């Protein structure tokens, strides 16, 4: 029965172009399959594009903030703050006996703290051992009445 239908069909279409027939008879996927696969492909693309958009947004936001800060001198302020922090850290880390002259100016020459001579305390002679033997220094003359 099927063969008969086919034969009738092909006899009727004998003169027609085989190429057109092949294109017209192209196998079609089921609508459900197309819908499912399409959703899957779109979903994967969205995740990828979403990630890119996020990165681009963060970059743009950073650039805008930097431009705004530069407008009010924030960049210079941040740079000097950073420099000060570095100096502070350096001061802490550098050993104390090493003296470094950071700046030299006439004002520093005139008003800088001059090194003072250390006066050596003269130790008084101990009379005996312990606290009892110590002589208390007199700060005022003795009371005479």
């Amino acid at each position, binding site marked *: *029965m*099927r*063969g*008969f*239908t*086919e*034969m009738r*069909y*092909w*006899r009727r279409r004998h003169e027609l172009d*085989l*190429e057109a*027939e*092949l*294109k*017209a*008879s*192209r*196998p*079609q*996927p*089921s609508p459900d*399959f*197309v819908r499912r*696969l*399409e959703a*899957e*492909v*779109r979903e*994967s*693309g969205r995740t*990828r*594009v979403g990630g*890119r958009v996020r990165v681009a947004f963060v970059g743009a936001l950073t650039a805008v903030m930097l431009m705004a800060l530069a407008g009010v001198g924030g960049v210079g302020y941040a740079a000097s703050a950073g420099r000060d922090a570095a100096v502070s850290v350096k001061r802490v880390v550098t050993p104390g006996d090493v003296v470094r002259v950071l700046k030299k100016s006439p004002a520093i020459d005139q008003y800088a703290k001059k090194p003072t001579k250390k006066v050596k305390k003269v130790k008084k002679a101990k009379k005996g051992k312990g606290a009892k033997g110590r002589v208390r220094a007199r700060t005022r003359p003795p009371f005479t009445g």
Partner: protein
Amino acid sequence: MLRRDPLANPEALIRRVYAYVAYRVGDGPDAEDLTSETFERAIRYRKSYDPKKGEPVAWLLGIAKRCIDGRGPMLELASENLDEPVASDLEEDAVRRLTVSRAVGALDERDRELIALRYGADLTARQIAELLGARTNAIEVALHRALGRLRETFGSDAESEPVRKREASR
């Protein structure tokens, strides 16, 4: 700089890839599996797509071809396993599709590949040549011959079918 997404318009691509696969392995669940597999690979390797090397459909068909070849001879043509359709409950369009599918399935592997690329995936002879690494002229000649063999297959199939049926019923 954002690169062009090869899967930006998936529906048309799905239809073309499916048509190619179905002409190669037969319409049905196997064709759907292979089409899904093709798109899974495409999603995984979408960054490797280079627009300079061709259209997205050609790239996808290359993947589909590798998927089919990777399955090897285990895969039988689904149209050979189809139940015999009854003309009374089939529309003319369905009969036509089935007849074409059976005729294409009767061709050898090479002819089927060419027919699938040309009339399933709707590629031009030049695109097929690029995909298969052959000359455009050679592809045009091969296509012409494949069509000739297909025409012969149609004739013999349609005429021998009633005889076979009669013999089977005896």
